């Protein structure tokens, strides 16, 4: 990767006795272990019906990925042709084994997500390696990660965007060159045509360049910015896609989810307060784990007398990590730093910009999934702050009482994040149970709403997918230890 100028300290970055490459491999191995753990869960997850089965069936009967791409160029509010092309591509590669193909694709994306994250940490000394477990548990444990794994779409487009954003960051941390520039342009193009939040790849590239990352050239910034212009021209000028409106879907507001008619009833024609609320709550969600998709579940739990340890674990973990970030920012400003100098500084700047941009994109409706890229960059920023904290904390100069308090706080904060990360398996088991049960109601619901008429020609495939989903062995929540429901996150 890059030079020592990118280390979390401004020093040599070569502390410790082990070779940097060995340390990096240890950190990568840890990431692979966690990715395999989540991947193992994914292979137990039945395909989802809602938002998933219809695109899968459409893909199975599409003539080619390109035809699907073209078919989805003109849609109201959403411009995601690449998403459907990728679903069709995986469908074509599946050769009839749809469940396996889509789940493997998902698991491989999760692996790439974690590996790119650890690679961006640039583990090259013992301190960074010591922080890597915390960084990984923040990365996996934050609720925004859940959206990248629990939603079993044919292909999880939120995860694709987060992976492409981390790919862009990794390239920005490289030495650069023509190949890097071209890859950045390709990554942006795929992301922007997959999902609206794909524009975050442009945000990452530009903020990396502004913060002084060596892999991004001026040429790449101009090129990718030109592509943003081209995107706007295509979307608004040629295809007239427009933007999503509040009529599209429900959104959380204070203590409840509002559907479109309720939004109209509550806000009338002046939607500005809702937009401001959505942006602010999206930012707060990443920094403090509240609200969740716009709903203040902690307050709701207090009012309903349903407070559980998980509420304190989630908020406590976030207060710890966000506290580290704030401490870091204050310390850097106090020490006279006015522009990013270290890798941690640069990660902090990029995180702040990605967070703001992600929140701005959530103005119409707020969803934890939209913030998944910001959640990944949050973990990077926390890691940098933690390394800085370890480097600058001289325990012998503070007295044993202060040291003991700091150790207890660090252990509690780190344990809270490890608990959240461990809870991902619990949420996925719960989700698998719900999704398998949904398949048993498919006939009934499709007969009722007429969906069968649309897919009658593919009945054999639907029956096969149903058989595959039903035969998937899932854990009945009744046999989960009771404490799990209280300690681990739940499926909001």
């Amino acid at each position, binding site marked *: 990767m890059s030079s020592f100028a990118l280390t979390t300290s401004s020093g040599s970055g070569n502390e410790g006795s082990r070779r940097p490459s060995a340390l990096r491999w240890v950190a990568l191995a*840890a990431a692979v*272990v966690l990715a395999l753990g989540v991947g193992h869960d994914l292979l137990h997850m039945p395909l989802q019906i809602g938002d998933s089965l219809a695109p899968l069936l459409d893909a199975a009967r599409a003539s080619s990925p390109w035809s699907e791409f073209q078919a989805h160029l003109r849609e109201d509010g959403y411009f995601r042709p690449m998403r459907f092309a990728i679903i069709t591509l995986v469908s074509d590669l599946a050769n009839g084994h749809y469940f396996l193909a889509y789940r493997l694709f998902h698991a491989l994306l999760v692996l790439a997500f974690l590996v790119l994250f650890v690679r961006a940490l640039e583990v090259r000394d013992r*301190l960074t390696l*010591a922080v890597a477990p*915390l960084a*990984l548990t923040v990365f996996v444990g934050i609720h925004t990660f859940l959206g990248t794994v629990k939603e079993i779409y044919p292909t999880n487009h939120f995860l694709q965007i987060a992976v492409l954003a981390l790919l862009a960051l990794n390239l920005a941390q490289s030495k650069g060159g023509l190949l890097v520039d071209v890859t950045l342009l390709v990554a942006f193009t795929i992301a922007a045509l997959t999902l609206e939040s794909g524009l975050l790849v442009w945000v990452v590239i530009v903020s990396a360049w502004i913060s002084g990352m060596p892999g991004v050239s001026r040429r790449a910034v101009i090129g990718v910015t030109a592509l943003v212009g081209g995107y706007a021209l295509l979307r608004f000028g040629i295809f007239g896609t427009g933007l999503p409106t509040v009529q599209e879907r429900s959104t959380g507001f204070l203590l409840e989810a509002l559907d479109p008619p309720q939004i109209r009833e509550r806000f009338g024609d002046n939607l500005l307060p809702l937009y401001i609320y959505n942006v602010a709550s999206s930012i707060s969600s990443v920094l403090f784990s509240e609200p969740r998709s716009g709903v203040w579940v902690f307050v709701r739990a207090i009012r309903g007398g349903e407070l559980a340890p998980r509420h304190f674990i989630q908020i406590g973990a976030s207060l710890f990590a966000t506290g580290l970030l704030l401490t870091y920012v204050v310390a850097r400003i106090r020490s006279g730093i006015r522009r990013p100098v270290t890798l941690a500084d640069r990660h902090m700047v990029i995180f702040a910009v990605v967070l703001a941009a992600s929140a701005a994109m959530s103005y119409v409706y707020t969803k934890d999934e939209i913030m998944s890229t910001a959640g990944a960059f949050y973990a990077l920023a926390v890691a940098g702050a933690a390394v800085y904290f370890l480097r600058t904390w001289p325990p012998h100069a503070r007295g044993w009482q202060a040291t003991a308090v700091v150790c207890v706080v660090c252990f509690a904060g780190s344990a809270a994040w490890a608990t959240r990360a461990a809870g991902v398996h619990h949420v996925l088991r719960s989700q698998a149970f719900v999704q398998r049960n949904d398949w048993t109601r498919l006939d009934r619901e499709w007969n009722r709403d007429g969906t069968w008429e649309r897919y009658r020609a593919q009945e054999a495939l639907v029956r096969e997918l149903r058989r595959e989903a039903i035969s998937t*062995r899932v854990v*009945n929540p*009744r046999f989960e230890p009771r404490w799990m429901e209280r300690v681990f996150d739940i499926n909001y």
Partner: protein
Amino acid sequence: MAALALPGALLILATAVMLAGLPFGIDPLWRVEPLTLAEAAALRDNGEVVRLIDAGEDPNKAGAVRAELLRNDAQIVTPLEAAVGIDRPDMIETLLENGAVLDAMTWTHLMCFATAIEADEAIDFLEQRRPADASTACEHVRTPW
């Protein structure tokens, strides 16, 4: 440093140990408890109900339900009785769609049972599926509890 690193490192280690057990059939994260058809119905496990029926289980045959799943003590009930026992029309419907028979005698039996335990949603559902010759007289009907 250890205070920050230890919890996450333990989680990674535990995950590695779990993964190492998979080739030997040890899977603590996805340990599936075997259920009878009546137990699956009692536990709202529609997916397992359909899987078991697809695998050849008889949806009209009574089966054992372990203590604490439906009641404090173990029960021998049919899947339909279990579904009524938890007041889940959705489960009754799933069973009927997959081969459970709701004849006049069964209907009366289930209706009396639902009335006795005040399973209101089940009562509403059964009312809609009442066979023409079904009776509502419960004097001689023996309910599971």
